[in-house]
């Protein structure tokens, strides 16, 4: 197998675009949420400023090696997820380092960051962080079940584990999208999506008003800035997977932007409409509503 070295700068370019897009999009979604509450909300460039400020903090303290590695793992999860799935279908430049079995790898990366975070926050020794981690892992695991089921359904349907091939099978008109060929899987996956985006009603883990404020309680300065970087990249990377698996992928950056925005908007929309679940409520909710859908979707194919 020959490796095309040109892929690396291209992948970095993707990363750069997605990073900026993510920063702007999260602020934009926050603004939409604020407008729903009749506020103006943060300026659209606020995320950039917060990032600069946190990198510019003069002092920081550490609680040990894992405390360092937590945010690093998390960022690796986000970046890895992005790099191993094709961002723009059919574009030599932006299909990144995708390869035949990348679907499994992507599923793994979705979870990888959370685990790294668990180790790091655990080391910080703060009781709130420990509680936050327990609740977060419980909820993410529950949300991951329907997603995994839906992904298997899709893989079975197209008889492949390569994201690129799945996207290829969906080309040629909207009716070829998984959304229409296997609506059950998409429904299950979108419910799981709600759970993993850390927005209401499933944001009890990270919400500032709850046990303050979950896993990142002890993180500050540059550690926090690393995690913010990841918070810009990771949701977009995850949405890219959803877009590729269920909504026909994207063949150009404008199409990418519109689709990612709409998928993100879905979680924001649900977020402003519904109050927050407690963890045990949300786990029950996932098991009752989302998992059976996932099972059905597998039976369907």
């Amino acid at each position, binding site marked *: 197998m020959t490796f095309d070295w040109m892929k690396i700068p291209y992948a970095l370019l993707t990363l750069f675009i997605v990073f900026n897009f993510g920063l702007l999009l999260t602020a934009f979604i926050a603004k939409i949420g604020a407008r729903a509450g009749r*506020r103006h909300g943060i300026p659209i460039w606020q995320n950039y*400023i917060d990032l*600069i*400020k946190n990198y510019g903090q003069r002092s920081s303290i550490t609680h040990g090696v894992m405390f360092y590695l937590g945010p690093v793992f998390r960022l690796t999860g986000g970046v890895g997820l992005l790099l191993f799935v094709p961002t723009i279908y059919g574009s030599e430049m932006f299909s990144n380092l995708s390869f035949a079995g990348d679907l499994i790898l992507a599923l793994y990366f979705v979870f990888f960051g959370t685990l790294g975070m668990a180790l790091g926050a655990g080391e910080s020794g703060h009781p709130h962080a420990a509680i936050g981690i327990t609740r977060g892992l419980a909820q993410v695991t529950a949300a991951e079940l329907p997603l995994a089921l839906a992904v298997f359904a899709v893989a079975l349907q197209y008889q492949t584990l390569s994201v690129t091939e799945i996207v290829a099978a969906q080309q040629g008109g909207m009716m070829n999208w998984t959304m229409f060929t296997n609506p059950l899987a998409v429904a299950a996956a979108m419910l799981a999506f709600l759970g993993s985006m850390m927005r209401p009603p499933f944001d009890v883990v990270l919400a500032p008003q709850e046990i303050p*404020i979950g896993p990142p309680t002890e993180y500050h300065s540059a550690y926090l800035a690393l995690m913010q970087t990841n918070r810009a990249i990771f949701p977009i990377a995850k949405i890219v997977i959803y877009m590729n698996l269920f909504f026909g992928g994207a063949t150009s950056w404008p199409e990418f932007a519109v689709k990612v925005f709409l998928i993100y908007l879905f979680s924001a929309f649900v977020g402003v409409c519904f109050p927050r679940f407690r963890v045990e409520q949300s786990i029950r909710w996932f098991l009752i509503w989302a998992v059976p859908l996932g099972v059905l979707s597998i039976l369907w194919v």
Partner: protein
Amino acid sequence: MKEELLKRVVKGPDGVEFEVEPLRDYYCEAPPAVHPPVYAKIVEDLFNWARSQSIWILGFGTGCGAIEMRPLMTPRFDAYRYGIQWRPTPRQANLLVISGYLSVKTLKRAIRAYEQMQNPKYVVGLGSCTINGGMYWDSYNTIKRLDDYLPVDLYITGCMPRPEALLAGFEDLKKLIRAGKAEGANQYAENFDWYKTNQKRVIHDWDMPDYNW
């Protein structure tokens, strides 16, 4: 010294015995260090600008004034427009607003919260109680001059200052930060002994270590 802070041997749920010494295990042992601005002027200016545009307030209210901070989060005043946000943990916060009178008991918590914040950090005193004791000037249980205990960057006067006054005050604080004059954290580190003496003078049941971060 409270009993739970003493050194003792604890038996874990699995039967293993181990020694805990809360004051050593849970706290830091070094005094705060001075962190002067080290980068080139242009970089520091950029950072100062960013700091001024992204002020994270520790959500910690002490006196009557805390009630005046809440409207800032709501549609009426919406401080988020100005890059002001609330953080629930001192580690991530940059600004400690002492919102009104500070009882000696709360002072202890305020000190601990302040010391856990990362340099650079700012303190705003809200209301006349933080300046000279205000209407609690003869109370036996509140401090009179906040500046003796924590380095205050800015006072917002009034009893009670309205949310508009707070917003104006935050704008003034931004000017201070941009001008590089808000170096309270370094001032605290330089005059650490003086501050500690003052704090210990009023806090009689001092049951925490001197360094809390």
